[in-house]
Protein backbone atom coordinates (compact mmCIF):
# COMPACT_ATOMS: atom_id res chain seq x y z
CA UNK A 1 0.00 0.00 0.00
CA UNK A 2 1.47 3.30 -1.07
CA UNK A 3 1.64 6.57 0.83
CA UNK A 4 0.26 9.96 -0.15
CA UNK A 5 -0.26 11.40 -2.66
CA UNK A 6 -2.79 8.78 -3.65
CA UNK A 7 -3.81 10.75 -6.72
CA UNK A 8 -1.58 10.91 -9.77
CA UNK A 9 -1.77 12.74 -13.02
CA UNK A 10 -2.27 10.45 -16.01
CA UNK A 11 1.22 10.77 -17.42
CA UNK A 12 4.15 8.48 -18.05
CA UNK A 13 7.62 8.37 -19.52
CA UNK A 14 6.07 6.45 -22.40
CA UNK A 15 3.56 9.17 -23.23
CA UNK A 16 6.31 11.80 -23.09
CA UNK A 17 8.54 9.80 -25.45
CA UNK A 18 5.70 8.97 -27.84
CA UNK A 19 4.77 12.62 -28.12
CA UNK A 20 8.40 13.45 -28.92
CA UNK A 21 8.29 10.85 -31.70
CA UNK A 22 5.04 12.30 -32.95
CA UNK A 23 6.56 15.78 -33.03
CA UNK A 24 9.33 14.48 -35.31
CA UNK A 25 6.82 13.48 -38.00
CA UNK A 26 6.51 16.84 -39.82
CA UNK A 27 10.27 17.01 -40.32
CA UNK A 28 10.34 13.41 -41.53
CA UNK A 29 7.52 14.11 -43.97
CA UNK A 30 9.49 17.01 -45.46
CA UNK A 31 12.55 14.77 -45.60
CA UNK A 32 10.71 12.13 -47.59
CA UNK A 33 9.17 14.75 -49.88
CA UNK A 34 12.49 16.26 -50.88
CA UNK A 35 14.98 13.41 -50.58
CA UNK A 36 12.98 10.23 -50.97
CA UNK A 37 12.08 7.39 -48.66
CA UNK A 38 15.66 6.42 -47.74
CA UNK A 39 15.27 8.19 -44.40
CA UNK A 40 12.31 5.94 -43.52
CA UNK A 41 14.47 2.90 -44.18
CA UNK A 42 17.16 4.31 -41.91
CA UNK A 43 14.62 5.07 -39.16
CA UNK A 44 13.33 1.49 -39.33
CA UNK A 45 16.88 0.11 -39.22
CA UNK A 46 17.82 2.30 -36.26
CA UNK A 47 14.60 1.52 -34.38
CA UNK A 48 14.97 -2.24 -34.74
CA UNK A 49 18.62 -2.06 -33.69
CA UNK A 50 17.79 0.14 -30.71
CA UNK A 51 15.07 -2.19 -29.46
CA UNK A 52 17.27 -5.26 -29.93
CA UNK A 53 20.24 -3.63 -28.17
CA UNK A 54 18.00 -2.34 -25.37
CA UNK A 55 16.48 -5.79 -24.88
CA UNK A 56 19.89 -7.42 -24.80
CA UNK A 57 21.32 -5.04 -22.22
CA UNK A 58 18.20 -5.06 -20.07
CA UNK A 59 18.37 -8.84 -20.04
CA UNK A 60 22.05 -8.79 -19.10
CA UNK A 61 21.38 -6.25 -16.35
CA UNK A 62 18.48 -8.25 -14.99
CA UNK A 63 15.93 -5.51 -15.52
CA UNK A 64 12.32 -6.07 -16.50
CA UNK A 65 12.01 -5.98 -20.29
CA UNK A 66 8.35 -5.12 -20.65
CA UNK A 67 8.50 -1.79 -18.81
CA UNK A 68 11.70 -0.46 -20.27
CA UNK A 69 11.31 -1.66 -23.86
CA UNK A 70 7.97 0.09 -24.14
CA UNK A 71 9.06 3.36 -22.53
CA UNK A 72 9.95 4.75 -25.97
CA UNK A 73 13.28 6.23 -24.94
CA UNK A 74 15.29 3.87 -27.16
CA UNK A 75 13.09 4.79 -30.12
CA UNK A 76 13.68 8.50 -29.58
CA UNK A 77 17.44 7.90 -29.60
CA UNK A 78 17.11 5.75 -32.74
CA UNK A 79 15.04 8.32 -34.62
CA UNK A 80 17.42 11.14 -33.71
CA UNK A 81 20.37 9.09 -34.97
CA UNK A 82 18.60 8.32 -38.24
CA UNK A 83 17.60 11.96 -38.68
CA UNK A 84 21.09 13.30 -38.04
CA UNK A 85 22.89 10.75 -40.21
CA UNK A 86 23.12 11.01 -43.99
CA UNK A 87 20.20 8.99 -45.37
CA UNK A 88 22.40 7.24 -47.92
CA UNK A 89 24.90 6.05 -45.32
CA UNK A 90 25.49 2.27 -45.45
CA UNK A 91 23.12 0.24 -43.31
CA UNK A 92 25.81 -1.01 -40.96
CA UNK A 93 26.86 2.53 -40.09
CA UNK A 94 23.45 3.35 -38.62
CA UNK A 95 23.20 -0.04 -36.95
CA UNK A 96 26.64 0.34 -35.38
CA UNK A 97 25.91 3.90 -34.30
CA UNK A 98 22.62 2.93 -32.68
CA UNK A 99 24.22 0.03 -30.85
CA UNK A 100 26.92 2.33 -29.50
CA UNK A 101 24.33 4.87 -28.45
CA UNK A 102 22.19 2.35 -26.56
CA UNK A 103 24.84 0.05 -25.14
CA UNK A 104 27.73 2.41 -24.45
CA UNK A 105 26.29 5.90 -24.14
CA UNK A 106 23.11 4.88 -22.35
CA UNK A 107 23.41 1.60 -20.48
CA UNK A 108 27.06 1.64 -19.50
CA UNK A 109 26.22 4.82 -17.62
CA UNK A 110 23.28 3.19 -15.85
CA UNK A 111 20.46 3.23 -18.38
CA UNK A 112 17.44 5.48 -18.68
CA UNK A 113 17.91 8.75 -16.85
CA UNK A 114 21.55 8.17 -15.92
CA UNK A 115 23.50 9.04 -19.06
CA UNK A 116 25.50 12.26 -18.79
CA UNK A 117 25.90 12.51 -22.57
CA UNK A 118 23.25 12.63 -25.25
CA UNK A 119 23.41 9.08 -26.70
CA UNK A 120 22.52 10.10 -30.25
CA UNK A 121 25.24 12.74 -30.26
CA UNK A 122 27.83 10.32 -28.85
CA UNK A 123 27.05 8.00 -31.75
CA UNK A 124 27.18 10.82 -34.29
CA UNK A 125 30.50 12.17 -33.01
CA UNK A 126 32.09 8.73 -32.97
CA UNK A 127 30.95 7.92 -36.49
CA UNK A 128 32.00 11.20 -38.01
CA UNK A 129 35.45 10.73 -36.54
CA UNK A 130 35.69 7.07 -37.50
CA UNK A 131 33.98 7.02 -40.89
CA UNK A 132 34.04 10.53 -42.38
CA UNK A 133 33.78 9.19 -45.93
CA UNK A 134 30.40 7.53 -45.25
CA UNK A 135 29.11 10.44 -43.20
CA UNK A 136 29.00 12.68 -46.28
CA UNK A 137 26.57 10.60 -48.32
CA UNK A 138 23.78 13.12 -48.46
CA UNK A 139 21.28 12.74 -51.30
CA UNK A 140 21.24 15.24 -54.13
CA UNK A 141 18.36 17.52 -54.88
CA UNK A 142 17.30 15.55 -57.93
CA UNK A 143 15.43 12.85 -56.17
CA UNK A 144 16.68 9.37 -56.85
CA UNK A 145 14.23 6.52 -56.80
CA UNK A 146 13.87 4.33 -53.74
CA UNK A 147 15.32 1.27 -55.48
CA UNK A 148 18.61 3.06 -56.10
CA UNK A 149 18.62 4.42 -52.52
CA UNK A 150 18.03 0.87 -51.26
CA UNK A 151 20.97 -0.35 -53.35
CA UNK A 152 23.24 2.39 -52.06
CA UNK A 153 22.35 1.77 -48.41
CA UNK A 154 22.90 -1.96 -48.70
CA UNK A 155 26.09 -1.61 -50.76
CA UNK A 156 24.64 -3.14 -53.94
CA UNK A 157 25.32 -0.06 -56.04
CA UNK A 158 28.51 0.48 -57.99
CA UNK A 159 30.66 2.78 -55.94
CA UNK A 160 32.00 4.94 -58.76
CA UNK A 161 28.51 6.16 -59.59
CA UNK A 162 27.88 7.25 -56.02
CA UNK A 163 29.48 10.65 -56.36
CA UNK A 164 27.01 11.61 -59.01
CA UNK A 165 24.09 10.71 -56.82
CA UNK A 166 25.16 12.24 -53.53
CA UNK A 167 25.70 15.86 -52.78
CA UNK A 168 27.15 17.94 -50.00
CA UNK A 169 24.84 19.57 -47.48
CA UNK A 170 24.59 23.36 -47.68
CA UNK A 171 26.96 23.74 -44.75
CA UNK A 172 29.41 21.34 -46.31
CA UNK A 173 29.19 23.05 -49.68
CA UNK A 174 29.93 26.41 -48.13
CA UNK A 175 32.84 25.04 -46.11
CA UNK A 176 34.39 23.34 -49.15
CA UNK A 177 34.07 26.49 -51.25
CA UNK A 178 35.53 28.81 -48.62
CA UNK A 179 38.41 26.49 -47.83
CA UNK A 180 39.34 25.55 -51.39
CA UNK A 181 42.69 26.47 -52.89
CA UNK A 182 41.48 29.71 -54.38
CA UNK A 183 39.61 30.59 -51.20
CA UNK A 184 40.86 34.16 -51.28
CA UNK A 185 38.56 35.02 -54.14
CA UNK A 186 35.55 33.07 -52.89
CA UNK A 187 33.03 34.80 -50.68
CA UNK A 188 29.94 33.45 -49.00
CA UNK A 189 27.80 35.07 -51.65
CA UNK A 190 29.71 33.68 -54.60
CA UNK A 191 29.90 30.23 -53.01
CA UNK A 192 26.19 30.10 -52.49
CA UNK A 193 25.13 31.81 -55.71
CA UNK A 194 25.80 28.98 -58.12
CA UNK A 195 25.29 26.01 -55.83
CA UNK A 196 22.37 23.77 -56.72
CA UNK A 197 22.00 22.80 -53.07
CA UNK A 198 20.96 26.30 -52.04
CA UNK A 199 17.34 27.25 -51.81
CA UNK A 200 15.41 30.29 -50.60
CA UNK A 201 16.95 30.79 -47.16
CA UNK A 202 19.39 27.97 -46.85
CA UNK A 203 19.70 24.55 -48.45
CA UNK A 204 17.04 23.55 -50.90
CA UNK A 205 14.78 21.09 -49.15
CA UNK A 206 16.78 21.44 -45.95
CA UNK A 207 14.97 24.62 -45.08
CA UNK A 208 11.63 22.77 -45.26
CA UNK A 209 12.87 19.93 -43.08
CA UNK A 210 13.99 22.55 -40.58
CA UNK A 211 10.56 24.16 -40.80
CA UNK A 212 8.98 20.76 -40.10
CA UNK A 213 11.10 20.34 -36.98
CA UNK A 214 10.19 23.87 -35.92
CA UNK A 215 6.48 23.03 -36.14
CA UNK A 216 6.93 19.79 -34.24
CA UNK A 217 9.06 21.53 -31.63
CA UNK A 218 6.54 24.31 -31.06
CA UNK A 219 3.91 21.63 -30.53
CA UNK A 220 6.14 20.06 -27.86
CA UNK A 221 6.38 23.43 -26.12
CA UNK A 222 2.59 23.75 -26.30
CA UNK A 223 2.29 20.24 -24.83
CA UNK A 224 4.56 21.33 -21.95
CA UNK A 225 6.97 18.49 -22.73
CA UNK A 226 9.80 20.95 -23.19
CA UNK A 227 10.08 24.49 -21.90
CA UNK A 228 10.83 27.50 -24.06
CA UNK A 229 14.19 28.09 -22.40
CA UNK A 230 16.39 25.62 -24.28
CA UNK A 231 15.21 26.13 -27.91
CA UNK A 232 14.91 29.89 -27.53
CA UNK A 233 18.35 30.32 -26.04
CA UNK A 234 19.88 28.04 -28.65
CA UNK A 235 18.24 29.65 -31.67
CA UNK A 236 18.62 33.21 -30.41
CA UNK A 237 22.32 32.76 -29.65
CA UNK A 238 23.00 31.18 -33.02
CA UNK A 239 21.00 33.91 -34.76
CA UNK A 240 22.79 36.71 -32.95
CA UNK A 241 26.27 35.28 -33.46
CA UNK A 242 25.72 34.56 -37.13
CA UNK A 243 24.04 37.91 -37.64
CA UNK A 244 26.84 39.82 -35.96
CA UNK A 245 29.60 37.97 -37.79
CA UNK A 246 27.97 38.21 -41.19
CA UNK A 247 27.32 41.92 -40.70
CA UNK A 248 30.95 42.55 -39.84
CA UNK A 249 32.39 40.34 -42.56
CA UNK A 250 29.74 39.18 -45.04
CA UNK A 251 32.29 37.56 -47.34
CA UNK A 252 33.58 35.13 -44.70
CA UNK A 253 30.56 34.32 -42.54
CA UNK A 254 27.17 32.98 -43.52
CA UNK A 255 24.03 34.79 -42.40
CA UNK A 256 21.71 33.82 -39.53
CA UNK A 257 18.96 32.27 -41.64
CA UNK A 258 21.50 30.07 -43.36
CA UNK A 259 22.68 28.85 -39.94
CA UNK A 260 19.21 28.27 -38.57
CA UNK A 261 17.79 26.51 -41.61
CA UNK A 262 20.86 25.11 -43.33
CA UNK A 263 21.82 22.23 -41.07
CA UNK A 264 20.57 20.43 -38.05
CA UNK A 265 19.93 23.58 -36.01
CA UNK A 266 16.15 23.16 -35.72
CA UNK A 267 16.41 19.46 -34.93
CA UNK A 268 19.01 20.31 -32.30
CA UNK A 269 17.04 23.21 -30.84
CA UNK A 270 13.85 21.24 -30.19
CA UNK A 271 14.92 17.61 -29.97
CA UNK A 272 18.61 17.34 -29.06
CA UNK A 273 19.53 20.08 -26.61
CA UNK A 274 16.14 19.45 -25.00
CA UNK A 275 17.03 15.89 -24.01
CA UNK A 276 16.14 16.27 -20.31
CA UNK A 277 18.54 13.65 -19.02
CA UNK A 278 21.73 15.23 -20.30
CA UNK A 279 20.76 18.90 -20.40
CA UNK A 280 20.78 21.46 -17.61
CA UNK A 281 17.61 21.52 -15.53
CA UNK A 282 17.28 24.90 -13.84
CA UNK A 283 15.68 27.77 -15.78
CA UNK A 284 18.87 29.86 -15.89
CA UNK A 285 20.94 26.74 -16.37
CA UNK A 286 18.93 25.84 -19.45
CA UNK A 287 19.58 29.26 -20.95
CA UNK A 288 23.31 28.97 -20.30
CA UNK A 289 23.48 25.39 -21.55
CA UNK A 290 21.66 26.05 -24.82
CA UNK A 291 23.52 29.30 -25.45
CA UNK A 292 26.78 27.42 -24.89
CA UNK A 293 25.79 24.74 -27.38
CA UNK A 294 24.91 27.43 -29.92
CA UNK A 295 28.18 29.28 -29.37
CA UNK A 296 30.26 26.14 -29.78
CA UNK A 297 28.21 25.08 -32.80
CA UNK A 298 28.81 28.39 -34.52
CA UNK A 299 32.52 28.31 -33.70
CA UNK A 300 32.94 24.78 -35.05
CA UNK A 301 30.88 25.60 -38.13
CA UNK A 302 32.83 28.77 -38.84
CA UNK A 303 36.37 27.83 -37.87
CA UNK A 304 36.46 24.08 -37.21
CA UNK A 305 37.23 21.08 -39.34
CA UNK A 306 33.69 19.69 -39.41
CA UNK A 307 30.82 21.15 -41.40
CA UNK A 308 28.27 20.87 -38.58
CA UNK A 309 29.45 21.02 -35.00
CA UNK A 310 26.24 20.39 -33.09
CA UNK A 311 27.23 16.94 -31.84
CA UNK A 312 30.55 18.13 -30.43
CA UNK A 313 28.98 21.27 -29.02
CA UNK A 314 26.29 19.25 -27.23
CA UNK A 315 28.79 16.79 -25.79
CA UNK A 316 31.08 19.55 -24.58
CA UNK A 317 28.21 21.31 -22.87
CA UNK A 318 26.96 18.01 -21.38
CA UNK A 319 30.21 17.90 -19.43
CA UNK A 320 29.43 21.30 -17.94
CA UNK A 321 25.86 20.43 -16.87
CA UNK A 322 26.54 19.52 -13.22
CA UNK A 323 28.46 22.74 -12.73
CA UNK A 324 25.81 24.82 -14.50
CA UNK A 325 23.02 23.25 -12.46
CA UNK A 326 24.87 23.76 -9.20
CA UNK A 327 25.61 27.39 -9.97
CA UNK A 328 22.09 28.26 -11.08
CA UNK A 329 19.90 26.76 -8.36
CA UNK A 330 16.72 28.80 -8.34
CA UNK A 331 15.66 30.91 -5.39
CA UNK A 332 13.73 28.83 -2.89
CA UNK A 333 10.40 30.13 -1.57
CA UNK A 334 11.01 32.66 1.18
CA UNK A 335 14.77 32.71 0.77
CA UNK A 336 16.67 35.78 -0.26
CA UNK A 337 18.67 34.72 -3.26
CA UNK A 338 20.24 31.69 -4.92
CA UNK A 339 22.25 29.50 -2.65
CA UNK A 340 21.92 31.71 0.40
CA UNK A 341 20.38 30.66 3.69
CA UNK A 342 21.92 27.23 3.45
CA UNK A 343 22.15 27.09 7.16
CA UNK A 344 19.37 29.55 7.93
Amino acid at each position, binding site marked *: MNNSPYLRQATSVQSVMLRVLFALLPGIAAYVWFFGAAIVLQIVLASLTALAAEALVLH*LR*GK*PLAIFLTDGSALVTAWLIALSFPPLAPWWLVVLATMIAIIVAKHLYGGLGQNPFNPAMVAFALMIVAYPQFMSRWPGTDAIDFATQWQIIFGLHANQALDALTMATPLDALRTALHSTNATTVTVASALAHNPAIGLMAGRGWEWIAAGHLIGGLWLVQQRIITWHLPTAFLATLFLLAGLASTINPSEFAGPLFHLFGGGAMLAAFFIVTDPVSAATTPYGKLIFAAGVALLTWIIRSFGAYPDGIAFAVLLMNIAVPLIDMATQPRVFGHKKNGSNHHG
Partner: protein
Amino acid sequence: MLAALLVMALGAVVLGAALGFAAVKFRVEGDPLTEKIDAILPQTQCGQCGYPGCKPYAAAMAKGEADINQCPPGGDEGIRKLADLLGREYKPLSAEHGVEKPKALAVIDEQRCIGCTLCIQACPVDAIVGAAKQMHTVIAAQCTGCELCVPVCPVDCIDMVPVAENITTWKWKYPVVAIKPVTTQ
Protein backbone atom coordinates in the same frame (compact mmCIF):
# COMPACT_ATOMS: atom_id res chain seq x y z
CA MET B 1 67.23 26.43 -21.42
CA LEU B 2 68.93 28.25 -18.60
CA ALA B 3 66.07 30.71 -18.37
CA ALA B 4 63.59 27.86 -18.08
CA LEU B 5 65.63 26.24 -15.34
CA LEU B 6 65.86 29.53 -13.50
CA VAL B 7 62.14 30.11 -13.73
CA MET B 8 61.43 26.64 -12.41
CA ALA B 9 63.91 27.03 -9.59
CA LEU B 10 62.52 30.42 -8.67
CA GLY B 11 59.02 29.01 -8.70
CA ALA B 12 60.08 26.20 -6.42
CA VAL B 13 61.69 28.61 -3.99
CA VAL B 14 58.71 30.99 -3.92
CA LEU B 15 56.15 28.22 -3.51
CA GLY B 16 58.27 26.51 -0.88
CA ALA B 17 58.50 29.72 1.08
CA ALA B 18 54.76 30.25 0.79
CA LEU B 19 54.06 26.73 2.03
CA GLY B 20 56.48 27.11 4.90
CA PHE B 21 54.89 30.39 5.87
CA ALA B 22 51.43 28.89 5.72
CA ALA B 23 52.51 25.95 7.87
CA VAL B 24 53.66 28.32 10.59
CA LYS B 25 50.93 30.90 10.22
CA PHE B 26 47.95 28.54 10.01
CA ARG B 27 49.17 25.87 12.42
CA VAL B 28 46.25 24.07 13.98
CA GLU B 29 46.48 23.55 17.70
CA GLY B 30 45.56 20.14 19.03
CA ASP B 31 44.98 17.14 16.88
CA PRO B 32 42.03 17.81 14.60
CA LEU B 33 42.07 14.26 13.29
CA THR B 34 41.43 12.80 16.73
CA GLU B 35 38.56 15.26 17.17
CA LYS B 36 37.11 14.32 13.80
CA ILE B 37 37.31 10.62 14.56
CA ASP B 38 35.87 11.19 18.00
CA ALA B 39 32.93 13.01 16.42
CA ILE B 40 32.08 9.86 14.45
CA LEU B 41 32.34 7.50 17.40
CA PRO B 42 29.04 6.96 19.24
CA GLN B 43 30.40 8.07 22.65
CA THR B 44 29.05 4.97 24.31
CA GLN B 45 32.33 4.83 26.28
CA CYS B 46 31.90 1.09 26.58
CA GLY B 47 35.53 0.14 26.08
CA GLN B 48 34.71 -2.79 23.81
CA CYS B 49 37.35 -1.50 21.41
CA GLY B 50 40.04 -2.26 23.99
CA TYR B 51 40.60 1.37 24.91
CA PRO B 52 39.26 3.05 28.06
CA GLY B 53 36.87 5.28 26.11
CA CYS B 54 35.94 6.72 22.75
CA LYS B 55 38.53 9.49 22.85
CA PRO B 56 41.50 7.17 23.54
CA TYR B 57 40.33 4.87 20.73
CA ALA B 58 40.06 7.90 18.44
CA ALA B 59 43.59 8.95 19.38
CA ALA B 60 44.87 5.43 18.70
CA MET B 61 43.21 5.41 15.29
CA ALA B 62 44.63 8.81 14.48
CA LYS B 63 48.09 7.44 15.25
CA GLY B 64 47.39 4.42 13.13
CA GLU B 65 47.67 2.05 16.09
CA ALA B 66 44.08 0.85 16.12
CA ASP B 67 41.94 -0.55 13.36
CA ILE B 68 38.67 1.05 12.29
CA ASN B 69 36.47 -1.98 12.93
CA GLN B 70 36.65 -2.25 16.70
CA CYS B 71 33.54 -0.28 17.68
CA PRO B 72 30.41 -2.45 17.97
CA PRO B 73 27.99 0.33 19.02
CA GLY B 74 29.07 2.44 16.02
CA GLY B 75 28.22 -0.53 13.85
CA ASP B 76 28.61 -0.92 10.15
CA GLU B 77 27.67 2.68 9.42
CA GLY B 78 30.29 3.95 11.83
CA ILE B 79 32.98 1.82 10.19
CA ARG B 80 32.00 3.17 6.79
CA LYS B 81 32.24 6.73 8.05
CA LEU B 82 35.64 6.04 9.59
CA ALA B 83 36.86 4.36 6.41
CA ASP B 84 35.67 7.41 4.52
CA LEU B 85 37.37 9.88 6.83
CA LEU B 86 40.66 8.00 7.13
CA GLY B 87 40.81 6.84 3.52
CA ARG B 88 41.08 3.22 4.61
CA GLU B 89 39.44 0.15 3.20
CA TYR B 90 36.09 -0.78 4.73
CA LYS B 91 36.14 -4.00 6.70
CA PRO B 92 33.42 -5.74 8.68
CA LEU B 93 33.22 -5.39 12.44
CA SER B 94 35.90 -7.44 14.14
CA ALA B 95 34.23 -10.35 15.94
CA GLU B 96 36.60 -10.29 18.91
CA HIS B 97 35.37 -6.83 19.88
CA GLY B 98 31.71 -7.74 19.90
CA VAL B 99 28.61 -7.61 17.77
CA GLU B 100 26.35 -4.74 16.74
CA LYS B 101 23.19 -4.72 18.85
CA PRO B 102 20.15 -2.46 18.88
CA LYS B 103 20.56 0.27 21.44
CA ALA B 104 19.54 -0.73 24.94
CA LEU B 105 19.35 1.14 28.21
CA ALA B 106 20.38 -0.12 31.62
CA VAL B 107 17.50 -0.54 34.03
CA ILE B 108 18.05 -1.27 37.70
CA ASP B 109 15.62 -3.66 39.35
CA GLU B 110 14.89 -1.57 42.38
CA GLN B 111 13.68 -4.55 44.40
CA ARG B 112 17.04 -6.24 44.20
CA CYS B 113 19.45 -3.28 44.39
CA ILE B 114 21.48 -3.31 47.59
CA GLY B 115 23.06 0.09 47.14
CA CYS B 116 26.64 -1.04 46.77
CA THR B 117 27.64 1.89 44.47
CA LEU B 118 29.74 -0.41 42.28
CA CYS B 119 27.67 0.46 39.21
CA ILE B 120 27.95 4.15 39.97
CA GLN B 121 31.72 3.83 39.93
CA ALA B 122 31.59 1.81 36.72
CA CYS B 123 29.35 4.17 34.80
CA PRO B 124 31.54 6.23 32.46
CA VAL B 125 29.00 9.02 32.02
CA ASP B 126 27.63 9.41 35.56
CA ALA B 127 24.21 8.24 34.47
CA ILE B 128 23.51 6.33 37.69
CA VAL B 129 22.49 8.16 40.83
CA GLY B 130 22.33 6.84 44.35
CA ALA B 131 24.37 6.60 47.53
CA ALA B 132 25.87 3.81 49.58
CA LYS B 133 23.21 1.47 50.94
CA GLN B 134 20.59 3.51 49.14
CA MET B 135 18.75 2.24 46.11
CA HIS B 136 20.25 3.39 42.78
CA THR B 137 18.56 4.35 39.58
CA VAL B 138 19.61 5.04 35.98
CA ILE B 139 18.96 8.39 34.34
CA ALA B 140 17.60 7.01 31.08
CA ALA B 141 18.33 10.17 29.09
CA GLN B 142 22.04 9.94 29.93
CA CYS B 143 22.56 6.19 29.66
CA THR B 144 24.62 5.26 26.61
CA GLY B 145 23.94 1.54 26.90
CA CYS B 146 27.61 0.65 27.41
CA GLU B 147 26.79 -2.33 29.69
CA LEU B 148 29.76 -1.59 31.97
CA CYS B 149 27.48 -1.54 34.98
CA VAL B 150 26.08 -5.01 34.29
CA PRO B 151 29.06 -7.23 35.23
CA VAL B 152 30.02 -5.26 38.33
CA CYS B 153 26.62 -5.60 39.97
CA PRO B 154 26.97 -8.20 42.75
CA VAL B 155 23.26 -8.99 42.77
CA ASP B 156 22.63 -9.00 39.00
CA CYS B 157 19.94 -6.40 39.33
CA ILE B 158 20.80 -4.48 36.13
CA ASP B 159 19.13 -5.46 32.89
CA MET B 160 19.77 -4.05 29.43
CA VAL B 161 16.35 -3.20 27.99
CA PRO B 162 16.28 -2.54 24.25
CA VAL B 163 14.91 0.88 23.35
CA ALA B 164 11.47 0.35 21.86
CA GLU B 165 10.25 2.42 18.95
CA ASN B 166 7.46 4.84 19.80
CA ILE B 167 5.39 7.37 17.91
CA THR B 168 8.00 10.10 18.26
CA THR B 169 11.07 8.02 17.44
CA TRP B 170 9.42 6.11 14.58
CA LYS B 171 11.07 6.71 11.24
CA TRP B 172 9.74 6.60 7.70
CA LYS B 173 11.25 3.64 5.93
CA TYR B 174 13.32 3.77 2.78
CA PRO B 175 10.82 3.66 -0.09
CA VAL B 176 10.50 0.24 -1.64
CA VAL B 177 11.72 0.39 -5.20
CA ALA B 178 9.09 -1.29 -7.33
CA ILE B 179 11.48 -2.19 -10.10
CA LYS B 180 13.28 -5.48 -9.72
CA PRO B 181 16.64 -4.71 -8.15
CA VAL B 182 19.73 -4.79 -10.29
CA THR B 183 21.29 -8.23 -10.08
CA THR B 184 24.45 -7.55 -12.03
CA GLN B 185 26.27 -4.30 -11.99
